[in-house]
């Protein structure tokens, strides 16, 4: 029984490490779908709570993609969520604003919110979650070419929305 308890503690530490490592990206991805930080946070917590209850991912080949898939499923299983209509919560920043002014973060947030849901998800997964086109394609059940085209369109729109800021930050 002692070994079982030790194994459980090891698993718990591993899951907490995963949460620290991927938590911010998972939360941002969840916000991209739900539009609400609180609901997104609930979904991420729900996934990790299930992992803590019965951590069974030894057979998972791509653990990072698996976590994003779990979060997406948790959100889409919630009938209240409509992925195409994300209402922006002005009070809740999506990004840290330590060395930036809040207006810049708000501009980016508005630009992301204005994107169609599928483009927003692809962009966030690519830029802030560090997933490849192949991983995104697998996750969203679309072709890698579709991922690339959505990303290209989204990037253009973001650039347009943040054009003035882009020039000032590109030199940084």
């Amino acid at each position, binding site marked *: *029984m002692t070994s079982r308890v030790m194994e*459980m503690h090891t698993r718990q530490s591993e899951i907490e490490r995963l949460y620290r490592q991927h938590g911010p990206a998972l939360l941002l991805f969840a916000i991209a779908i739900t539009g609400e930080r609180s609901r997104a946070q609930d979904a991420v917590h729900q996934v990790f709570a299930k992992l803590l209850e019965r951590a069974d991912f030894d057979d998972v080949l791509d653990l990072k993609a698996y976590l994003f898939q779990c979060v997406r499923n948790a959100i889409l299983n919630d009938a209240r969520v409509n992925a195409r209509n994300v209402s922006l919560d002005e009070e809740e*920043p999506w*990004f840290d604003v330590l060395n930036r002014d809040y207006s810049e973060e708000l501009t*980016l947030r508005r630009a992301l919110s204005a994107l169609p849901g599928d483009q927003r998800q692809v962009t966030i997964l690519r*830029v*802030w979650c560090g997933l490849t086109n192949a991983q995104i394609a697998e996750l969203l059940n679309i072709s890698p070419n579709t991922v690339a085209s959505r990303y290209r369109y989204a990037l253009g729109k973001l*650039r347009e929305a943040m054009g003035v800021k*882009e020039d000032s930050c590109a030199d940084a």
Partner: protein
Amino acid sequence: MHDDDEQFEIYLRQFRPREPEPLPNGKRVRLTRRAFAMGACAAAAAVAITVVLTMGRGGRLDRSGGAERGHIELAPIPPPLTIRKANALVAHAPSLQAAMDLMAFHPQSAVTPKNRQSALFVLSKEKN
């Protein structure tokens, strides 16, 4: 991808996603509680086994001990009549006949149950 796109990506990545709230303690507690429950079950099982074994052994002791006590209580052995006791009875009895009766019959404190009469009482009544 164009260089402009890469530059724009680098610019976007400067925005860091916010940290999520820490995992609720309930999750940690749930695991700890599970481990604790397993330990508690094991402890309870150990206690139960100990109690059963103790009661079994104690029961055997009680049975033997109870038998000894029952023997003493149910069949009290009257103290033996010694010459000293006989002399004392003769000295204190009102008559020699009374002293002989005391030596022959040990006093009994038997209580007659309700609604019953002793045979000796009935016979004495019939005599009268």
